[in-house]
C-alpha cells in the first residue's frame, strides 16, 4: 500500500514549480531577447550579439556606469567601516546604555520609505547649498547602505564564541591586537557579505539617485530609466542582461560566504 505523506498537500508541487517558472520568466525573456537581431524587441528574427557591441560602444552608458561604480565603491567602504564599528560596540560592550535605540537608528533606512528619505536629503542639500553631484550621492548612499552592511556583520559577531577573544586577551594581546588577529579573520565572511550587499544596493538604487540626479551625476539605473522612457530597444535588453549577470555573480558569492560561515559556525 502506498504510504501517504500526511504533511503534503495535493497540488503543492505543481504550484511551486509554476511559481519558480513565473519568478524566472521575466529574467529569461530579457536575456533571450538581448540576442535577437531584430530592432523590434518582441519580434524574433535571428541570433546576434550586435546589441552588446552597441551597448559597450555607448559613451553615455559607460559614463553612467563609471559614476555608479565610484559612488558604490566609496559608499560601500564608508558604510562598512561605520557598520563594523557600530556592530562591535553593540555586540561586545556590556551594560551599554541606548543599545536598543542605537540599533534602531542604524537600521532606520531599512524601516522608512526610501522616497521620503530621498526627498529629505534633497531638501537638506539644497538648503546647505551642496552642489557637488557625486558627493550628494555618496552621502545619501552611505546612509541607506549602512544597515545592509551592519546586519550580516552583527550576525557574525553574535554567532562567534567569545572564548577566542578571551584566550587572546589572556595571552596579553591588546584589545586592538586581539581584534586584528582573532576577531577580524573570524568575522571576515560576514564583513564581505555585508560589504557586497551594500555595494549591490548602491549600484541598484533608483529612487534616491533619480531625485538627486544633477550636475553630471547620472547613475546607471537612472540612465537606464531614461532609455526605457524612450521605448524598449534590444540594446536595453543587452544592458539589462549584463547587469543581471553581474548581480547573479555577486549573489552567488554572498551565498557561498554565508554557507561557509554557517558550516564553520
Amino acid at each position, binding site marked *: 500500500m502506498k504510504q501517504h505523506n500526511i504533511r503534503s498537500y495535493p497540488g*503543492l508541487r505543481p504550484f511551486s514549480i509554476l511559481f519558480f517558472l513565473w519568478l524566472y520568466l*521575466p529574467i529569461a525573456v530579457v536575456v533571450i531577447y538581448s540576442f535577437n537581431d531584430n530592432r523590434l524587441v518582441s519580434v524574433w528574427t535571428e541570433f546576434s550579439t550586435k546589441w552588446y557591441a552597441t551597448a559597450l560602444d555607448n559613451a553615455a552608458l559607460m559614463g553612467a556606469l563609471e559614476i555608479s561604480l565610484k559612488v558604490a565603491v566609496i559608499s560601500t567602504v564608508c558604510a562598512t567601516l561605520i557598520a563594523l564599528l557600530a556592530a562591535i560596540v553593540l555586540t561586545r560592550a556590556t551594560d551599554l546604555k541606548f543599545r536598543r535605540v542605537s540599533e534602531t537608528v542604524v537600521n532606520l533606512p531599512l524601516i522608512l520609505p526610501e522616497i521620503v528619505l530621498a*526627498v529629505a536629503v534633497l531638501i537638506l542639500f539644497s538648503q546647505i547649498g551642496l552642489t557637488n553631484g557625486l558627493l550628494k550621492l555618496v552621502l545619501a548612499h552611505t546612509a541607506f547602505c549602512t544597515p545592509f552592511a551592519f546586519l550580516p556583520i552583527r550576525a557574525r559577531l553574535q554567532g562567534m564564541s567569545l572564548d577566542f577573544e578571551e584566550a587572546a586577551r589572556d595571552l596579553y594581546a591588546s584589545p586592538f591586537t586581539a581584534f586584528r588577529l582573532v576577531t577580524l579573520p573570524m568575522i571576515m565572511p560576514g564583513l564581505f557579505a555585508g560589504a557586497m550587499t551594500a555595494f549591490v544596493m548602491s549600484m541598484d538604487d533608483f529612487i534616491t539617485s533619480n*531625485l538627486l540626479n544633477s550636475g553630471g551625476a547620472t547613475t546607471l539605473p537612472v540612465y537606464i*530609466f531614461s532609455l526605457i522612457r524612450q521605448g524598449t530597444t534590444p540594446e536595453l535588453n543587452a544592458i*539589462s542582461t549584463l547587469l543581471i549577470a553581474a548581480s*547573479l555573480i555577486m549573489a552567488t558569492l554572498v551565498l557561498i560566504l554565508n554557507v561557509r560561515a554557517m558550516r564553520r559556525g
Partner: protein
Amino acid sequence: MSKSFRFWGLVPAWALMILTLIIPILIVAGVSVAERGAYGGFTWSFDLSSYQQILYSVGWTDELEFDPKYVAIIGRTLLFAGGATLISLLLALPVAYYISQQSARLKIILLYLVTLPFWVSMIVRVYAWLIILGNDGLLERVYRMFGGADISGFLFTPGAMITGMVYSYIPLMILPVYASVEKIDPALIEASHDLYGGRWTALKRVILPLAAPGLTAGSILVFVPCLGTVLEPMLLGGGKQLMMGTLIQTQFGGARNWPFGAAIAMVLLVLVVLVLLLNARRARSQMEAAL
C-alpha cells in the same frame, strides 16, 4: 572594552543617521508647513495650506471645496499595496511550505532561487515586465498564438502595477514565512491526523496558527515598501495611476511644489510608522500572553 571606544565606536553611525536622516526628516516636516515659492522652492512660514490641499481645492470665490483627487491617490496606494501584500501572501505560503518539506540540500538551493531575482536591479526587473505586458509584447503574442482574440492593453493597468509590485517584493514574504513553517514540528501534524483531523483541518488548526508570525512579518516587509513604491506606477502604470510615491516624486520634479510634496511625504511617513507601531504593540501583547 574601554569606555572611550564604547562611545566613539557608535559616533560615526549616529552622526551619519542624524545628519542624513533625522535632521532632513525634521526639515521635511518644516517644509510641509512652509509657503510655496513663486518659482519652485519655498519660503519658511507656518502655513497648513499644503495639508489643506490634500482634502480641499480652492474655488473661484476662495471657498473650500472637498476635492477627492488626492484622497483617491492615498486610497489607491493603500488598496494596491494591500492587494499586492495579499497576493504575495497567498503565493508565498504554499511555496514556503513546499520548500520546508525538501531535503536540506534542496532547501538551500530553492531558498537561493527565491532570493536570486531580488539581487537583480529593480529597474531591470520592472523593465522585464514592460516587455512581457507591453503593446505587441510577449503576453499578447502568446495569447494570439493559442487562438485568443486580438486583445491589447495589459500594460498601464492596476493589474500590471500589482504584478510588478508582487514580483519585486515577494522574496521578502517567502523568507519569513519559510522561517516559521520550517520550525513546525511534524509530530503536531501527525497528532492532528491521529485525532481524525484531515489535511485541511491540519492546515487550519495547526499550520496556519504556527505560521502566523511569519505571515505577519512578511506582510509588513512587503506592505511598507509597496506604500512608497515609485518605479511600478511610473513604468507599468504609465503615470496615469498615481500612487503616493510617484505623487511625491512629481512635486519635486516637474510640478515643483515642494511644500505639497513634503506634506504628502509626511502623510506617507505617518502611515508607515503607524503600521510599524501597530505591529510592535501586537507583538508585545502576544509575547505577554505567552509568558
